[in-house]
């Protein structure tokens, strides 16, 4: 008997991984889509209250956060380009910049929410229960939608941290970077949702 030649090939299909990530992104889009639908119905029903509510938010904080997210979206796309061009150092730097921008966003959010909570405005507070229906709906949606979005930021940061370490120890490399690619897609989704949240919550007044 001659020796059997065993050829071990790694089981992986990057194309399918990416399609899977997109399917997950679709569920996320519909999750936030449902919330935007609730927002638009109640906005149509209580236009004045929603207008007054959005005047309570700081456009400056919202704008700074928008720029932070847009910038981080570009840097994570650059990290992927760097990985494809086999530039490990630049990829690590770009992921680090993305994480820093995410932190800027969260710190901003902390002060924004902290200010509201100090003033007694948070879900379940006495002040909130005394508001009339339109205001109550606006602020409930504000806290729920920006809160859910912030949760996505935190999950995205965890994913990017994992990518950062994997690029460093070369588990993610020039020939195998689908994890970085999928994490980047998730990060762009977070940016995509904020593109709609910002004008609807902060600007239309």
């Amino acid at each position, binding site marked *: 008997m001659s020796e059997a030649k065993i050829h071990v090939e790694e089981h*992986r*299909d*990057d*194309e399918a991984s*990416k*399609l899977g990530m*997109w399917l997950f992104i*679709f569920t996320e*889009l*519909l999750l936030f*889509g449902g919330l935007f*639908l609730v927002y*638009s*119905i109640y906005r*149509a029903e209580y236009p004045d209250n929603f207008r007054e509510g959005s005047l309570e938010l700081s*456009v400056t904080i919202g*704008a700074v956060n*928008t*720029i932070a997210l*847009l*910038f981080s*979206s*570009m840097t994570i*796309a*650059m990290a*992927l*380009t760097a990985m*494809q*061009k086999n530039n490990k150092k630049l990829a690590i730097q770009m992921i680090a910049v993305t994480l820093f921008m995410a932190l800027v966003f969260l710190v901003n959010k902390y002060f924004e929410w902290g200010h509201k909570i100090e003033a007694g405005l948070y879900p379940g507070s006495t002040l909130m229960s005394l508001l009339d229906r339109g205001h109550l709906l606006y602020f409930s949606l504000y806290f729920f939608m920006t809160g859910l979005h912030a949760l996505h930021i935190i999950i995205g940061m965890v994913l990017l941290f994992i990518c950062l370490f994997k690029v460093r120890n070369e588990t993610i490399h020039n*020939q*195998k*970077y*689908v994890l970085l*690619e999928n994490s*980047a*897609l998730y990060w*762009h989704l977070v*940016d*995509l949702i904020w*593109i*709609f949240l*910002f*004008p*609807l919550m902060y*600007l*239309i*007044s």
Partner: protein
Amino acid sequence: MANNTSHTTEYRVLGKILLLLMFLTFLTISVTSYDLGAFTVTIALLIAGVKAFMVMSYFMHLKHENLLLRILVAMIFVLFAVIVLITFIDYAYR
């Protein structure tokens, strides 16, 4: 090998897209500071739509993805538009 077929977007292109997105953000802020009535919402959503399209086409590489994925993404937005339309019709005529 079917792996690593992803398109590489040049840094320069990504930078240009960011500049465009920043410009559109400032445009939204300045447009919504004027009272244009019902048009304010329409304009803000239109600009947001353009921004979302740019992010998906260039940052998320959809411009260079295969046709199946592009159709799937388009269908999700069509589905959402149908849901919105049906819900609003329901609210308007109940």
